[in-house]
């Protein structure tokens, strides 16, 4: 699923978006507030959905080559988080949907259904 489609489905607010990412295809999503669980989720072309708003989310994404992070439940990222996302070239969005619904919407629309 293209990032532009993911953004549209979740009605995302954009905090940072590297231009080249909008048409990038993603195959799966990881929804978690536990960064160590994210570090154990070794899959390719993944976006991260989380309720956490601190720089460690971006660091974790960087380590796992996760190129896009969506904050759920309408939370605002901290200034440090936005700054680091910019520095590391990781897309950062927020959605008003809670975690369960956000994951559900993406799954229902086909993300992560191909057993990748």
């Amino acid at each position, binding site marked *: 699923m293209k990032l532009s489609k993911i953004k549209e489905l979740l009605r995302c607010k954009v905090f940072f978006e590297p231009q080249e990412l909008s048409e990038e295809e993603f195959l799966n999503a990881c929804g978690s507030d*536990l960064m160590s669980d994210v*570090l154990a989720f070794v899959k390719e072309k993944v976006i991260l959905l989380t309720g956490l708003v601190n720089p*460690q989310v971006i660091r974790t994404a960087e380590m*796992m080559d996760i190129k896009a992070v969506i904050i759920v439940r309408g939370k605002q990222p901290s200034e440090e988080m936005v700054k680091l996302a910019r520095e590391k070239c990781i897309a950062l969005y927020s959605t008003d949907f809670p975690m369960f619904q956000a994951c559900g919407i993406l799954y229902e629309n086909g993300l992560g259904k191909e057993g990748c």
Partner: protein
Amino acid sequence: MPLTMEFDIKAGDFVLAGEASSKIKDTLKKLGVKPEILKKVAIVSYEAEMNIVIHSVGGVLKAIISKDKIEIIAEDRGPGIENIELAMMEGYSTAPEEIRNLGFGAGMGLPNMKKYSDYFEIESQKGSGTRVYMVVLNK
């Protein structure tokens, strides 16, 4: 000649936490290390770095990069682990609430480090430091 990178890691510095692992990852990338090897090193070094930031009074993270392997060494100055067997269990954690709020301290760090390294060794004593030695084979 192996390439050695060494970083001082401060306890409790959650803004900088992860920067050392990021530099190690960038260096390996520039050296052309394969993505799957890169990810394993990134996971184990980041978990080790976070452990120093969260649990210790400060320490050092070291990467020794050779052609056939990448060694990651995390050494801290205390307070040490009372029961290593217990600390290695998935889900066991002594991290305080504020660390859990950051998304860490769920007791997955050491098990993740063991899982993603090809060789894992931990030495620690209550009252002195902890040393974790990990090897990721580059093949």
